[in-house]
């Protein structure tokens, strides 16, 4: 233990005298935490979009039966998603997009109310992009949800109008048309009248034979038209997505991003420090001096792994604490955060010393650590169903033998109560720590 203490003290002194590395270790969590916090706590700015409304004010309302729809309502809805620059001609809209004044142009054609009212042609709004895929994606993302909301509201209004007409056909009532008010009998009353007339006719009356099918048709129409409202509603909202979560809860995207960011930071600090500090012993030729009985191999590995894990732990916790200033995290679970971060940090440090034992200089150790770790992050985050089942099984096995996935799952469970639980992930990490410790011992003997 004494040798381990002196070695850790020596490595801390070396770290302190490596200003770039020490600065990175201190600034890294602060900068990353602030960036992630800002990214998650603030919605992206609205894209600047040239806006041209070609509908003349006199035609800005659509009358469907008794319902009056104001197109300006939907205009305002779209403005929630974009920062509009009002222009007065298509040429101006195009010029703004072309010279980059705006990311896109949104044009509401003059025929939109007529198309909506008559429904004999599709109503549309026109969006003009400048060709940049990123700009297009940004504007599309902003507009699509608002267009969908507007569509849903329009569809709902249209359905209400259709429902009114169906009720009128079924039950009768008054219909306003070209300033006139017309009484409509309705199918139910028609059927009743027909049945009453049929009851008064003699059994062999030729009129009874001719009216009978009409009365039957009226009854069939009444029975079936009543169910047509549901059909109209289904067309207005063709597919409804109902979300079900296997674990009973889902991790909100921003908290998931927090867990990923902390796990990635733990990985970089733990891996790079552990592998680099062990490789430094070989690079400085001091490893041979130490191994001749001055320090036991397990103490040497322990010193490197503990120091790297301690630094990674501090970075991980500082990041979570920093991010909590922007994103609401449950501080009541801080004990679990600490456990998860400690387990992850030790897992990465164990992998770091295993890698450091294989190489003879710090640069090679750093390169190896990066080469090993980055693909594993991507693999560990591949969701099931994104790739073929067989390939996903292979990815699962690869992810299981490196500490990123269990570390991420432990942090996710600690921060977000996700599944699998933290204890399962910590157990997984403990197995990996033992395995990588053994590999590091073997690597030192080589």
């Amino acid at each position: 233990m004494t040798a381990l203490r002196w070695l850790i003290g020596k490595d801390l002194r070396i770290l302190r005298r490596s200003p770039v590395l020490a600065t990175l270790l201190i600034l890294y969590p602060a900068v990353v935490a602030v960036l992630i916090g800002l990214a998650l706590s603030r919605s992206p700015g609205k894209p600047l979009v040239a806006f041209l409304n070609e509908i003349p004010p006199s035609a800005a309302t659509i009358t469907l039966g008794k319902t009056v729809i104001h197109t300006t309502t939907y205009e305002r809805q779209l403005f929630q998603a974009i920062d509009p620059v009002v222009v007065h001609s298509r040429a101006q809209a195009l010029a703004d997009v072309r010279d980059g004044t705006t990311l896109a142009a949104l044009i509401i054609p003059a025929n939109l109310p007529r198309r909506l009212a008559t429904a004999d042609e599709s109503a549309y709004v026109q969006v003009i992009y400048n060709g940049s895929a990123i700009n297009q994606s940004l504007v599309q993302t902003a507009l699509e949800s608002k267009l969908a909301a507007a569509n849903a509201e329009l569809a709902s209004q249209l359905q209400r109008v259709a429902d009114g007409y169906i009720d009128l056909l079924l039950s009768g009532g008054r219909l306003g048309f070209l300033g006139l008010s017309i009484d409509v009998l309705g199918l139910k009353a028609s059927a009743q009248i027909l049945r009453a007339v049929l009851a008064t006719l003699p059994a062999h009356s030729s009129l009874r034979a001719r009216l009978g099918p009409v009365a039957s048709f009226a009854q069939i129409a009444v029975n079936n038209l009543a169910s047509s409202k549901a059909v109209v509603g289904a067309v207005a909202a063709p597919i409804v997505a109902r979300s079900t979560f296997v674990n009973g809860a889902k991790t909100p995207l921003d908290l998931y991003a927090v867990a990923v960011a902390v796990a990635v930071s733990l990985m970089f600090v733990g891996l790079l420090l552990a592998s680099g500090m062990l490789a430094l012993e070989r690079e400085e030729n001091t490893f041979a001096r130490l191994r001749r009985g001055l320090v036991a191999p397990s103490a040497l590995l322990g010193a490197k792994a503990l120091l790297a894990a301690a630094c990674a732990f501090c970075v991980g916790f500082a990041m979570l604490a920093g991010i909590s200033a922007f994103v609401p995290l449950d501080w009541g679970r801080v004990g679990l955060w600490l456990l998860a971060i400690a387990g992850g940090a030790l897992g990465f440090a164990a992998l770091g010393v295993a890698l450091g034992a294989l190489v003879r200089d710090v640069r090679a150790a750093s390169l190896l650590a990066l080469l090993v770790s980055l693909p594993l992050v991507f693999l560990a985050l591949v969701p099931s169903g994104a790739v073929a089942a067989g390939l996903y099984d292979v990815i699962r096995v690869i992810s299981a033998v490196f500490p990123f996935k269990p570390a991420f799952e432990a942090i996710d469970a600690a921060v977000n109560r996700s599944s699998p639980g933290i204890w399962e992930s910590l157990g997984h990490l403990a197995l990996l720590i033992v395995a990588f410790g053994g590999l590091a011992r073997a690597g030192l003997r080589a």
Partner: protein
Amino acid sequence: MTALSARSLSKRFGERVALSEVSFELEAGEVLAVIGPNGAGKTTLLTLLAGAAEPSGGSVALAEGGRIGWVPQQTAVYSKLSVAENLRLFARLERVGDVDAAVAAMLEQTGLVDRAAEQLGRLSGGNRQRVNIAVGLLARPAVALLDEPSASLDPRQRERLWSFIGAQAQAGTGIVFATHDIAEAERHAGSVLVLADGELLYSGPTEGLRQAGPGEGDLETAFVEFLRERGH
């Protein structure tokens, strides 16, 4: 009194034999030079004696209670630590009783008092080698193993080094040093080991090597002839 004895020391790296069945004894206060051409096995022998590598065969025995000090060919110290911090760290790892006294004495003996606070990375190659030697001899070992200790030193530093090593030997420390410089071996060593291709060709007094050669001349000429006669 025998300070160290090696029995049939061998080392293989795969198929290659780096050292084969080397045996010798070192008395307390004796200065022994290990000489031989490049790749003869000099560094391998010192590494095995120091315990920095496991022998493939044979054994090394040290007088009871004795320690071995090792000065490897390449400086093995931390470049981000100062001279004093390096000495202090290794004194602690060597479990030296009075760390501060040992460090102060070694700084004094190696003439590094003025450079004690400087980081190793900022020192010249010669001064780094002096620290390397100081670290190796810090624990007052019974046997000191030095691998080409004067290689990167200037003549003044070299003189100071040999004077320091001579004082250590007079105090009873057995010294084994590997060198390419035959004149240095003749000047400072009482006996020599001649290695070639991992084999021990000669073990005995320096003067004996001259006589084992075919003709008259200096020790270097005799050494080259000695090797040539044996097919090296």
